[in-house]
C-alpha cells in the first residue's frame, strides 16, 4: 500500500516534470454556481510556482512513502498511517493549485485536521498534549482565515488574482498574514512546532520539508501583492523568530527537536527574505530547503530507529548500522543547511545573504541569526559524528538491514546537491559569477564561526551553563501562548461578561430597545384603534387639501 502510494506520487512527480518545461500561466476554472453577489468556482492555477513546488512536494512525498514502508514496518495501523499521510499531501496539492480562497480553506483545514491526527498517532499522553497544542494553535490561524474570507467575500474576491486596495481588503490581507505565520510557526505562535515532533518521523519529515509549515510561506508568496504593506511587521517577526529558533536549536538535546528548530530558523530566514522584497529568492530557498530537510529528517529517523527510538543526543550508541551508513548524508544535509558553497542550500541562501547585507537595517540581529544557524549545524553534526566513535551509557544499537533505504535518502541527497545550481540556472536565471567573488568573505565568516563553535564546545562551556531557562523554553513562549495567555483572556472575558454583557450592555442595549419599542407600539396602537374618528378627520383634512 505504502509503496503503491510512493509509486503514485513518483508518477505524479514525473508528470509535473513534464509540465515544468511549458512556462506560462494556465488557469482552469469550473463555475459551480453564481448567486446574487458571488460566483463560486473550482479553479486550478498552473504556473511556474505551483508546478515547481508541486513537483518537489510529489518527489519528496514519494521518497517519504518509500521510507515509511521501512520505518513504520511492524506497526499495526500502517495502512491508516499511509492513508493519512497521503491525505496530507493531497490537501497540500489543493493548497498549491487552487487560487480560490474557498478551496484554499479546504486544503488548509485538511492540513490542520490531518496534522492533528498524525501528531496523536502514538497513543501516549505527551503526544496527545502535543497534538492538541498543534491543532488549537493552528485553529487560531484558521479563525483568522475565516475572518479574511468573510472580509473578502464582501467584495466577492475569492482568488488572489483580483486584489483591490480597499480598506477591508487590507484588513483581510492582514488576517491572512496572521494565518500564514501561524502555519509557519513564527514568533507568537511557534510553540506548536517542537511539540509536533511527537509525530512519527516520516510525518515530521513531510511536515517540515514541504507540506505543513512551508504552506504558510508558499501562500505568502502567492498573496504577495496583498502583503506589501505589512513587510516591516514581518521583518521584525522573522528576525526574532530566527534568533529564538537559533538559540533553541543550540540548547536543545532532542535530535528531532533540533531539526525542528532548524526548520523554524530556515522558515524565518525565508520570511525575512520575503519581507525585504526578495520573493523569488524566498521561493528558491523554500525548494532547496525542502530537499535537504526531507533527507535530514529521514536520516534522523533512521538513527532514531536504530537507537531504539531514543532521540536524545546524550543517549547515542556507536553500534547502530544505520548511522554508519548515513552519517555522510547527515553531513551533506547539514552543510547544505548552513549554506556551504556549491551545495544547493548555498545557491539560495547566498543570494539572500548578499542582497540583504547591502540593504538591511537589522543587520546585527540578522548576522547573529545566521551565526546561530551555523553554530547549531556544527553542533548537530559534531554530536552525530562523535557518537560514532565514543559511546554513552546505551549499548543497545539495533542492527537492521537498511541498505534499501539508500534509494529515498540518497536520491534526495543527490537532488539537494544538484538541484540548487540546476534550478538557479534553468528556472530562476540567476547569475552567480559575481556572487562567487563577492562571497569569499562568507567563507571567512564560516571559518570564524567554526572556530567560535569549537570554542563554545570546549572552552566556553561554563558560560552557557548559566540559568538558561528563558532560552531553553522558547523565550517562555510556550507558557505565555497557552496557559497564561488563555488565563488572561479568561479573566478579561469574565470581566466583560460581568460588567458589560450581563449588566450595562444588556440594560442599555436589548432591554432598553425592547422597552422603548413596546412603549412606542402602545402609542401607535392608540392611533390605530382610534379608528373611524381619526379616519374621518383625515378625510376632511385631505378634502381641504385638495379643494
Amino acid at each position: 500500500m505504502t509503496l503503491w502510494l510512493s509509486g503514485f506520487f513518483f508518477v505524479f512527480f514525473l508528470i509535473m516534470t513534464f509540465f515544468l518545461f511549458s512556462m506560462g500561466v494556465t488557469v482552469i476554472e469550473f463555475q459551480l454556481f453564481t448567486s446574487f453577489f458571488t460566483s463560486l468556482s473550482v479553479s486550478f492555477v498552473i504556473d511556474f510556482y505551483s508546478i515547481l513546488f508541486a513537483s518537489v512536494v510529489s518527489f519528496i512525498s514519494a521518497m517519504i512513502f518509500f521510507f515509511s514502508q521501512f520505518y513504520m514496518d511492524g506497526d499495526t495501523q500502517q495502512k491508516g498511517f499511509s492513508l493519512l499521510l497521503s491525505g496530507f499531501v493531497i490537501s497540500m496539492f489543493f493548497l498549491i493549485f487552487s487560487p480560490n480562497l474557498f478551496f484554499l480553506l479546504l486544503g488548509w483545514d485538511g492540513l490542520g485536521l490531518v496534522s492533528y491526527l498524525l501528531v496523536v498517532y502514538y497513543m501516549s499522553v505527551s503526544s496527545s498534549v502535543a497534538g492538541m497544542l498543534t491543532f488549537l494553535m493552528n485553529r487560531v490561524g484558521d479563525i483568522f482565515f475565516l475572518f479574511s474570507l468573510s472580509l473578502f467575500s464582501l467584495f466577492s474576491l475569492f482568488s488572489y488574482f483580483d486584489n483591490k486596495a480597499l480598506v477591508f481588503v487590507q484588513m483581510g490581507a492582514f488576517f491572512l498574514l496572521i494565518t500564514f505565520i501561524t502555519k509557519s510557526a513564527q514568533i507568537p505562535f511557534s510553540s506548536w512546532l517542537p511539540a509536533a515532533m511527537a509525530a512519527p518521523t516520516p510525518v515530521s519529515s513531510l511536515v517540515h520539508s514541504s507540506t505543513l509549515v512551508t504552506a504558510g510561506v508558499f501562500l505568502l508568496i502567492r498573496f504577495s501583492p496583498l502583503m506589501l504593506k505589512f513587510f516591516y511587521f514581518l521583518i521584525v517577526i522573522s528576525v526574532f523568530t530566527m534568533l529564538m529558533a537559533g538559540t533553541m536549536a543550540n540548547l536543545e538535546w532532542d535530535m528531532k527537536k533540533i531539526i525542528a528548530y532548524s526548520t523554524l530558523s530556515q522558515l524565518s530566514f525565508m520570511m525575512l527574505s520575503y519581507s525585504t522584497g526578495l520573493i523569488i529568492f524566498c521561493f528558491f530557498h523554500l525548494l532547496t530547503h525542502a530537499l535537504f530537510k526531507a533527507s535530514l529528517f529521514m536520516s534522523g529517523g533512521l538513527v532514531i530507529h536504530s537507537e531504539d527510538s531514543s532521540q536524545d543526543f546524550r543517549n547515542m550508541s556507536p553500534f547502530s548500522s544505520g548511522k554508519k551508513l548515513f552519517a555522510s548524508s547527515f553531513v551533506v544535509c547539514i552543510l547544505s543547511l548552513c549554506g556551504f558553497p556549491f551545495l544547493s542550500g548555498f545557491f539560495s541562501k547566498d543570494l539572500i545573504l548578499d542582497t540583504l547585507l547591502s540593504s538591511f537595517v537589522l543587520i546585527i540581529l540578522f548576522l547573529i541569526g545566521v551565526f546561530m544557524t551555523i553554530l547549531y549545524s556544527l553542533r548537530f553534526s559534531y554530536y552525530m559524528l562523535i557518537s560514532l566513535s565514543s559511546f554513552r551509557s546505551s549499548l543497545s544499537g539495533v542492527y537492521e538491514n537498511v541498505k534499501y533505504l539508500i534509494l529515498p535518502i540518497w536520491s534526495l541527497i543527490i537532488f539537494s546537491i544538484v538541484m540548487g545550481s540546476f534550478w538557479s540556472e534553468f528556472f530562476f536565471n540567476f547569475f552567480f559569477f559575481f556572487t562567487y567573488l563577492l562571497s569569499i568573505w562568507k567563507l571567512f565568516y564560516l571559518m570564524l564561526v567554526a572556530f567560535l563553535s569549537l570554542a563554545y564546545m570546549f572552552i566556553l562551556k561554563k558560560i552557557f551553563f548559566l540559568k538558561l531557562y528563558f532560552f531553553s523554553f522558547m523565550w517562555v513562549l510556550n507558557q505565555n501562548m497557552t496557559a497564561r495567555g488563555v488565563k488572561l483572556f479568561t479573566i478579561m472575558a469574565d470581566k466583560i461578561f460581568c460588567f458589560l454583557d450581563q449588566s450595562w450592555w444588556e440594560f442599555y442595549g436589548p432591554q432598553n430597545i425592547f422597552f422603548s419599542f413596546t412603549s412606542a407600539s402602545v402609542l401607535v396602537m392608540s392611533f390605530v384603534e382610534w379608528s373611524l374618528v381619526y379616519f374621518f378627520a383625515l378625510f376632511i383634512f385631505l378634502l381641504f387639501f385638495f379643494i
Partner: protein
Amino acid sequence: MTTNYLTTRAISHREQVCALYKKAVRTMEAYWVIRADVRYQAVMMRHRFDQNKDIKDMRIAVKLLRDGEEELFMNQHPIPFQYQYSPGGSAYGRVPYKPDWLVDSWHPLEKASYPKYFAQREKRKDEWVKYWEDHYNKGQKFDDHEPEWHGNWDEKLPGEKVGLDPHKKVKPHHH
C-alpha cells in the same frame, strides 16, 4: 530532603547524602555528552563528597548537605536527560498497556458472548492461584491483604542486603 510526593518515614542523613550524590551524577549526565567526560566529572564529584566523609559534627554535615542541595538546585539542567522508555522520555507510553484484569470487569452478558474463552480463563486463573499457593505461600492461608511492612529495606546497601562485602570485587552480571 526528599523528592518523594509523600514522605512516610524519616530519612537518614546517610540516605540523603547518597541521594544527593546520585542526583548530582544524573545532572552531570545531562550536561556532558561523552561518556569519558561524565565519568571524569563523576569522579571529581565523588572526590568532593569523599573530602567531607569523615565529618562527625552533624551541624557541619547538615549544612554541607543543604549547601549541596542548593548547588544542585541552582545547576539543574533545563532539559534533563531521560531514557526513552522512562516517564518523560520520548517514547514513553507509545504502546498503550491494557491491563489483563479489564477483561474480568466485563458485564456477564458481554462475557456470555465468548463462553469458551471465559471458561478457559476461569480455569487458568484457578490454576494460577493454586500454583502461587504451592510455590510462594507454602502452608499459609491465602490472604489478599497487603503484608505488614517490617523494617526499612532501603536503609541497607544492595551488597549488605544479600550479605556480601561491598568492597569485595563483584563480577558484574549482564541483564
